[in-house]
C-alpha cells in the first residue's frame, strides 16, 4: 500500500492505495466521484478523461500513485461556485448531451483544449476530441458547443 497526497478538484486528499489501483478506480471507488466514467478500461473511449496537472489523461491508464503530489480535476470540479461553467452552459444551449455517458470526458478534454488554445478552429476542436468517443450525438453539437464557449469567452474579455 502507498500513502499519497492528491489535490482533487482543489481539495487535498490523503489516501492509502494499493500500487495497482488506477486513478479511475481511486476517483470512483475511494472518493465516490462517480462522474468520471469507465467505458473501456483500455484508453480507447475517453469516458474516463480527467486533468492531471491540467493535462488530459485517461484515468483508466493512470495509476493512482502517479497522481501523488499532483492536481486532479474531474467533471465534478468544472462547475464554479455551483454555477455551470461557460462550457457546460454551452453544452446545454446547443443540446450537446444525449445519454450523457461520454459527456464528463468530453467536457474535460474540451476544457483542456480551451485552456491551451482559447480560439480553436473547428478542425482543431475535432482533433482535440478524437480520443473521446460518443455514440449518440454524432459530435456535431459537442464541437459546436466548444466553439460557442470559445466565442463567448472571446466576446466577454477578448482572447483570454
Amino acid at each position, binding site marked *: 500500500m502507498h500513502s499519497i497526497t492528491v489535490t482533487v478538484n482543489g481539495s487535498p486528499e490523503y489516501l492509502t492505495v494499493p500500487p495497482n489501483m488506477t486513478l479511475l478506480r481511486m476517483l*470512483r*471507488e475511494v472518493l*465516490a*466521484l*462517480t*462522474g*468520471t*466514467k*469507465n*467505458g*473501456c*478500461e*483500455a484508453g*480507447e*473511449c475517453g*469516458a474516463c478523461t480527467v486533468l492531471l496537472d491540467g493535462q488530459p489523461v485517461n484515468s483508466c491508464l493512470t495509476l493512482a500513485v502517479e497522481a501523488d503530489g499532483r492536481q486532479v480535476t*474531474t*467533471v*465534478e470540479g*468544472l*462547475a464554479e461556485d455551483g454555477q*455551470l461553467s461557460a462550457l*457546460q452552459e454551452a*453544452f*446545454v*444551449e446547443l*443540446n450537446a*448531451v*444525449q*445519454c*450523457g*455517458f*461520454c*459527456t*464528463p470526458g468530453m*467536457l474535460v478534454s474540451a476544457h483542456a483544449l480551451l485552456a491551451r488554445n482559447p480560439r480553436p478552429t473547428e478542425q482543431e*476542436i*475535432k*482533433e482535440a*476530441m*478524437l480520443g*473521446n*468517443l*460518443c*455514440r*449518440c*450525438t*454524432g*459530435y*456535431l*453539437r*459537442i*464541437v459546436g458547443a466548444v466553439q460557442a464557449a470559445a466565442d463567448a469567452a472571446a466576446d466577454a474579455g477578448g482572447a483570454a
Partner: protein
Amino acid sequence: MAEKYVGQRIKRNEDPRLLTGRALFVDDVELHGMLHAAFLRSDYAHARLVSVDVSAARNRPGVVAVYTAEDLGDLWKPGPLLVPAPHSVENVVFHQRTQVPLAKDKVRYVGEAIAVVFAESRYIAEDALADIWVDYEPLEPVVDMERALDADAPLIHEDLDSNLCAHLAQEKGDYQAAREQADLIVSRRFLVDRGAAGAMENRGVVADWDEKAQHLTVWDTTQAPIPIRNGLAGMLGLSAHQVRVVAPFVGGGFGPKIMMFLSEEVLVPWGSMQFKRPVKWIEDRQENFLATTQERGQVHDAEMALTSDGRILGVRDVFIHDTGAYDPYGMTIPLNTQSHAMGAYDVPNYYTEVKVAFTNKMIVTPVRGAGRPQGIFVAERLLDIAAKELGIDRVGIRRRNLIPPEKFPYNHEIIDQAFAPLVLDSGNYRLALDQAVKRIGYEEFIKDEQPRLRAEGKRVGLGIVVFIETTGIGPYEGARITVETSGKISVATGVGTQGQGHFTSFAQIVADQLGVDVRDVHLVTGDTAEFHWGTGTFASRGAVVAANAIHAAAVAVRAKTLKLASKVLETPEEELELRDGEVRVADIPRQSIGLGELAVLANPLRGAVEPGTEPGLEATDYFGPQYGATANGAQAMIVEVDPETMMIEIKRHVVVEDCGTVLNPLIVEGQVHGGVALGIGNSYYEKLVYDENGQLLNASLADYLIPSATEVPRMEVGHEVTPSPLNPLGSKGAGEAGAIPVPALFAQAIEDALADYDLEVLETPLSPNRLFELLQGKEKAE
C-alpha cells in the same frame, strides 16, 4: 389554449445533472457489503463441454461461490421468447431455441457463459475465472450463414434436423405474372455484414435482496424495466410487487439493452438472493463485443421488374438472416426487412422469402434500424441499378415510383413486426425528396459542379435516397400525472430513457396542458416502483406511444383541475384558463388560485369526499395505437474519394425527416445526427470480423472503428410535417431513421464518384481496403 412548449427548441431539463457528474448510472450504485460477479466465457464457437472443474476457483480466498449449469437447479432453463413467431402468417416455420443462463453440454458461440463467480471484489472474481478448468471437445464451427443451411452442416442445436431457425414467405399481388410483363429485370446478390450497437456504457446489473423486507431491488441498464421486473419475478418465484427494477440514467441503448434476460441479468439478482447480499456485475468492453447482442448479417438474392419508362412492376427478395446461436427475439428483424424492401415505393407485386439460420456467433437482436437498413439497401440499390440500365435519372425514377400522397392510408399488405398487414398511415414522400434535391443542389451539381471537379481530377459523387421507417408500435404505454401541493407536477411513466430527452419532451406536453413552466414538471422514467405498467423504449416508440399516454393523462388532470377550480372560483369552466401555475378567470386575472392550493383542496383532511370522485389532482391514462405510425425521409450526400488511400470525405450531408409532429426539434435533430453517424459507421468503418473459427477478431474499440469527431460530417437537417392520424399528438418516431438509409446512400455516392470504374456496390459495410479490392480488376472505362 395557446401551445407554448410542444414544437419548440426547449433546452433539456436533465442536462445540468449529466454535465456535473451527478447523474446516477448503474455502475455508480455502490452498496455496503456488495459482492462482485464475473463470468467464464467460452473460448470456442462450437464445442462439447466434457467437464468443467471449478474446485480450485472455489478455494480461492475471497471467492464466495462458483456455479455452473449443474448448480442452478430449477433456475436452469432456456430464457423467454421475447417476441413470438408471427402466427398471422400462413405456413410460418419457427424453431424456438433461446439462450440458457449457463451453457450445459455444449457451447454455441465464443463468449457464451459457462460459469459464474461471486467474490468479494471484481479482481478476485476475475482471478478465480483463471482457476476454472474446462475440458472442451471442439466441434466444427458454423460461421457462415449460407454454409449453416447446407444439408451436411454440423448441427448447432442437435435436436433439430438442420440449422434452419425459421422460414417465412409472403406475397403481395403476383410477382411472377408481373415479371412476365416487365421490360427490364435487374437481379443482384447483396451482402450486409454484422455491426455492434456500441453504446458508450457497457451493460450492467446491481441487485440487492432485502431478506427482512423480502424485497429485491435491481438497477439494470435496460431499455425495458417493466418486462424485466415481470420476468425476474417469475424466474425467481417472487410476486411482481416484491421486485423493483430501476433503469436509472442509461448510457445509450440502441437495441441490445432491451429486455434480454441474458445470463448476467438473471444470475446477478439470483445470486443476491442466494447470499442475501448486494451483487454487482458491470460488463467490460471486451465482453460488450463478445456477449452483447449484435445485428445486420443478411444475404439477399433480389430482383426488380420494371417497365422501360422506369415504373416498378414488382420486387422479389429471397434472403437469409443470421440469428446467431439462439433466437430470443423471434423474427422481428427479418419481418422489418420484409416490410422495408419495397422502400417508399408503390410496388404492386412483391414476393419476399426469408430463411433464418442459426450460426455459431453471438445472438442477433435489433440494433438501431433493426432490419430496416437491410431492406432499404436492397430497394434503393435495385432501383439505382435499374435507373442506370434504363438511362433514367436517379431522382426521376424515384419520383415516378413514390407512393403518392392521395394513396394514404396505403395498404402495404406485408405482415410486419406488429403481426398485422402493414398500413402506412400518412405521408407526402415527394416533399422530402424534393427538399433534399433542392438542399443538395442536385441539378447544379450534376450539370456544372461535378464535371468541373472531375476535370480537375477529383473523384466526387452524389447520392440521394428515400426511405420509410415503421415506428411507434403498440401494445401500449401509460403515465400517471400528479399536481403536487407545491404546485409542481410529477409525471411517472414506465419506459426507460437512454438519452432521448424524455425528461424534456414529455415535460413539454404536460406543461402545455397544465399551464406551468416546463422546468416545474418532474419526470420519473424507468422505475417500476413509480409506475407498474408498460413495455419499454425501443422501435422508435417513445415519442409516439409514451408521449401520447402522457398527453392523455395530462388532459385528464387538466379536466380535474378545471372542475375543482370552477367550484372554488364560482366560475364556469369555460371561463377559466390555466396559466403560470394558476387557474384564472380569463377576464379577471386577479381572481385566481394556484395549482398547489387546488391540490391541497383536492385532498381534504376533513369533510366528505363526494361519491364517485377521487382525491387529488392526479390521473393515470394509457395509449395504445391502432397500428404503428410510419415516418419517412430522404437523405443526400456528396463525397470525394481519394484514389490513393481510398479514404472518403463526406463533403455535404442533407437529411430531410418527416416524423409527423415534432415535439422538440432540438431533440429530433440530435437523434438524426446520432443515427446518421451510426449509418456512416455501418457504411465504411464498422464491421465485426469473425474468422473461420467463429472468433471475433476486432473485439475492442481500437480495432472496431466507431466513427470519431473527424469522420462525421456536418449535416443540414430539414423537416416536413405530415402528422399521423393515429394519435392525438400526430407524432411518428424518429429514433432510428437517421441510420436506416445511409448504407444505400453511401453506396450510390461512391459509385457516382467512381463512375469511371463502372463499380457496383452490392455490399455493406465497405472499408478502404474492401473498396480497393473491389476496384482491382475493374477496367477503368474511358
